[in-house]
């Protein structure tokens, strides 16, 4: 029993599935954004595990770019949540129908 690549990949799969379930089942917009962050972290874990397994640092470079895009995504998403909250006074995603009418 040695810690191999597959252990990390399995953990990453579990975390990614948890993120997907959170995104699909929670109705609070901020918790949905946090679920997206969880999915991104699961993917980052996969990238680092493969980078270590192949002895190639480029996987870790890709993790940098994923983190930068995740930060940008979180900032924009939370700004949108604030803007919607100003108009609707709720962030329950079932209450929005901004594309209707």
């Amino acid at each position: 029993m040695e810690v191999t690549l597959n252990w990390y990949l399995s953990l990453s799969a579990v975390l990614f599935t948890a993120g997907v379930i959170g995104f699909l089942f929670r109705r609070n917009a901020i918790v949905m954004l946090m679920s997206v962050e969880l999915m991104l972290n699961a993917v980052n874990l996969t990238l680092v595990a493969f980078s270590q397994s192949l002895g190639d640092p480029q996987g870790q470079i890709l993790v940098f770019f994923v983190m930068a895009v995740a930060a940008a995504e979180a900032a924009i998403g939370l700004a949108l949540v604030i803007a919607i909250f100003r108009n609707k006074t709720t962030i329950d995603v079932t209450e929005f129908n901004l594309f209707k009418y």
Partner: protein
Amino acid sequence: MAAQILFFALATAAIAGALGMLISRNPVNSALWLILNLFCIAGLYLTLNAEFIAVVQVLVYAGAIMVLFLFVLMLLNLAALPDLKKIDGRRVLAYVLSMGLLAMLSFVVASSLDMLPVPGSLEAVAENGSASNLAKSLFVQFAMPVEIIGILLLAATIGAVMLAKRKAV
């Protein structure tokens, strides 16, 4: 033996953090559970000889991004949150089972087409994740993407400020 125990401890805590994020009714508790999860993933990066990525994970994710989430959660007065719908266990079970089935079928197809990834060993590759080693490829080979990601972050910052600004009516 120590490596296995460390991995299992960190993995268990990471999964506990993810599940805690899913089932907390209060979004602030969700954010705190997620921070636990992010710290555990940083620990796993350390076990993978990626110390620089682990430090960046703690600084950027557990620090900056989660502080942003908590700031917005506490800025919006969510005291009057409606009750969350109860999670329907059958739908979760259906989702997990279908994903497992998809994984198995993909594995069968990949193995029949001789496309299985070679199982990699995780022997310590010295210098793989050190800051100097990463900087060599980041600022030489990937210098252009770094500039572009800087512009992207600037645009995202400006966009966030514009979106969240109170409209002067």
